[in-house]
């Protein structure tokens, strides 16, 4: 059996954040097939592409040395979403991303709790000095989460490549957070 080793595990009061693994594929597949993923998936996405994208999610942990975390409830190892560092090679800078895969995980502040831990990991363990989040202007829930995390619009920052209109939110460094 081949496993990903040395990936950190983060803990919050209600959640565990860990690197994605094979057990998370069905939940990711269902999320990508569902309209709720419309804001983050490519227009030509299908299950084959989704599988490769999932391999990319896992593989970036090795290729970059860090990656995004699946978050689960502490006592139930079922992926509710994904959050954390994400930096495709052609993006202008590193992102702090989040997706909530399951509607049941909404409305409880879980994404905020997970993204807060991932952000602290990026600024702390990884030593980042800045981070952005790229958000579709129509994704009001995601914009609300960015604001709740203390991020603010950075209109001068370059968006990722592509034709889609994207808002850039920049996260404050820990020392200047209120």
């Amino acid at each position: 059996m081949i496993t990903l080793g040395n990936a950190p595990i983060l803990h919050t009061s209600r959640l565990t954040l860990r690197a994605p693994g094979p057990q998370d594929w069905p939940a990711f597949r269902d999320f990508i097939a569902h309209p709720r993923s419309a804001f983050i998936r490519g227009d030509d996405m299908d299950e084959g592409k989704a599988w490769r994208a999932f391999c990319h999610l896992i593989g970036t942990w090795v290729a970059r040395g860090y990656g995004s975390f699946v978050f689960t409830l502490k006592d139930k190892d079922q992926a509710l979403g994904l959050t954390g560092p994400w930096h495709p090679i052609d993006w202008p800078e590193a992102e702090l991303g989040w997706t909530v895969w399951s509607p049941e995980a909404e409305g409880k502040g879980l994404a905020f709790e997970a993204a807060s831990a991932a952000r602290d990991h990026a600024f702390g363990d990884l030593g980042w000095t800045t981070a952005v989040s790229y958000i579709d202007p129509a994704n009001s829930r995601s914009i609300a989460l960015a604001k709740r995390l203390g991020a603010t619009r950075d209109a001068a920052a370059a968006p990722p490549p592509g034709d889609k209109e994207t808002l850039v939110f920049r996260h404050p460094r820990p020392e200047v957070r209120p």
Partner: protein
Amino acid sequence: MTQAMRPQLIGLPVLETERLILRAPAATDWPAFLSFRQSARTAFVGGIKKEHQAAEQFASFFGHWVMRGFGRLIAQDRATGAPIGHFGPMQWQDDAEVEFTWSLWSAAAEGKGLALEAARAMRDWVFGPLGLTQARAEVHRDNAASHAIARRLGGQVQADASPNWVDAGSVYRFATAGAA
């Protein structure tokens, strides 16, 4: 972050041949892979890719290992330590057959039988320790060197099959000695 604590794959096989070591990909293989992926050598395997496409493909190699328990091995020259190409079984979809793949990354590695040496070790590992009993491969019509490797690995052309990702070419089938 120290190298020892860097996230990495655990449980990986290492295959040894007379002149090569076949091991799982490492982050340090990226420059050589990118150089290959942006060279004319990719004409028979999807063509030149942009850097970000190559990076996604490279990262996907690691994820494939975790998802399937097998994946692409990098052949490393024993003498120089340099990575010379990738060889490995791939299965990009749950319902797809396992596919043998092989690519030499640079012209400097050609003409010495290294690709065949690596591909044989890969096949013997797949049909031996890995326990699979059959596989397929797709070879572009004009890729003579690759047709020769497919044949010498014991591949049989499946006349009624069309390749999926090669735009024109042959499908080879491989099976363990005991399999149908």
